[in-house]
């Protein structure tokens, strides 16, 4: 240790930094050992085509987001434009939810990845650069920083990042994991419309898509649900999503069709029958609507809204018939 301090200043800094980190995050196991031992990733990878935006002061959020949005096909996503959308002048930085919001505004699905090195590698090896939040300081004295992981070298156990003003920042896997872990392993993957992230998990993905639907960004939500339906034929939520969009666009026949698809996959979900009942009422298929509403009420005995379904639908039928 002391011998190390005799070497030139930058090295001393590194050693000191390492020591600080060591003392700072003793708690909780790291994942890198397991990843290395798994021998899953044996060839080096580096996504050379990933654009590089040397950040202006404090603007690593806009720069990192521009990098991954451009890869996903949003050509006009420049750091300057994104700074307007994600930069908080008084905090001299960008918040995570602002990055998610700006991604939605660019009509892309902001997929917050599972918090594992394995998921990270899965994405990078599939060609998707990953935006990560790092804490380059200490847990109690954080230095938040966004960077983009673009590569990994299994032999030297090093991660390659586009980071700040450095086009190819090389960081040991171990140190990278420590900085990432202190930011709760937060990572964002953005793919082209209709393409699932390689590591995508159904519920996580639906959590990323549903807000787009809520904000009436229909096209990107439809493409995302369609991709999910194809990838996970056993997930009813894709079809509920497609049905709900169709309903909100007043395509009630399409809505009905998708709700039936969802019911075929999961016949136990009350909400699907509830929504189906509405889609049927809107098409004046009153008897079918009544039985769907009854089904919803029967399936969810302790859900107040579902219990009201038959009465609500009866009222809607009366209103329709005037």
């Amino acid at each position, binding site marked *: 240790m002391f011998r190390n301090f005799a070497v030139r200043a930058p090295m001393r800094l590194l050693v000191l930094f390492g020591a600080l980190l060591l003392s700072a995050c003793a708690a909780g196991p790291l994942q890198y050992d397991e990843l290395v031992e798994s021998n899953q990733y044996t060839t080096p990878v580096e996504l050379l085509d990933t654009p590089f935006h040397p950040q202006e002061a404090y603007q690593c959020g806009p720069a990192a987001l521009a990098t991954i949005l451009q890869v996903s096909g949003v050509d006009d996503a420049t750091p300057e434009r994104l700074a307007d959308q994600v930069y*908080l002048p008084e905090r*001299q930085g960008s*918040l995570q939810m602002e990055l*998610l919001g*700006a991604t939605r505004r660019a009509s892309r699905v902001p997929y917050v990845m599972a918090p594992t090195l394995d998921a990270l590698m899965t994405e990078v090896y599939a060609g998707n650069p990953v935006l990560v939040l790092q804490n380059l300081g200490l847990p109690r004295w954080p230095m938040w920083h966004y960077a983009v992981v673009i590569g990994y070298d299994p032999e030297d156990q090093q991660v390659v990042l586009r*980071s700040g*003003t450095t086009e190819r920042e090389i960081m040991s896997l171990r140190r990278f994991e420590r900085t990432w872990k202190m930011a709760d392993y937060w990572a964002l993957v953005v793919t082209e419309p209709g393409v699932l992230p390689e590591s995508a998990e159904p*519920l996580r993905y639906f*959590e990323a898509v549903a807000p787009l639907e809520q904000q009436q960004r229909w096209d990107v939500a439809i493409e995302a649900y369609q991709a999910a339906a194809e990838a996970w034929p056993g997930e009813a939520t894709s079809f509920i999503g497609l049905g709900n969009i169709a309903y909100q666009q007043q395509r009630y026949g399409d809505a009905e069709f998708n709700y039936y698809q969802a019911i075929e996959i999961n016949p136990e979900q009350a909400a699907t029958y509830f929504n189906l009942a509405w889609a049927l009422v809107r098409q004046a298929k009153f008897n079918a609507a009544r039985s769907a509403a009854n089904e919803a009420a029967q399936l969810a005995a302790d859900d107040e809204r579902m219990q009201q379904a038959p009465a609500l639908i009866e009222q809607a039928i009366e209103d329709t018939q005037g």
Partner: protein
Amino acid sequence: MKKSLIYGTTFFFGSLVFNTAFTAPAHADIVSTQEIVTEQRAGINKTQLTEQLERADIQEQLVRYGVDPQEALARIDSMTDAEIMELTADMEELPAGASAVTVILLLFIIWILIR
């Protein structure tokens, strides 16, 4: 009248006129996908929806943090209720990714102090 209060009031009423997020959803009758997904995650039956006032409040906060008023509206529109609640909770404490330059400077200072 306090400046922030004027801002807040202006945005609240302004947003009632301009902001679709403040108007009632056109189809409140069906169960939204958002609610279904939230239920699946939490195993709960009801989604807590952000009060409109909280949205106005966070808008005012964003403006105080230096964001242009019109832009603040657009940012809020692009976030989910859960994200907005998180934001309202503590804007000062949330991680704001910034520059690595600060880190290097800081390390240098520590180094000077400790050597």
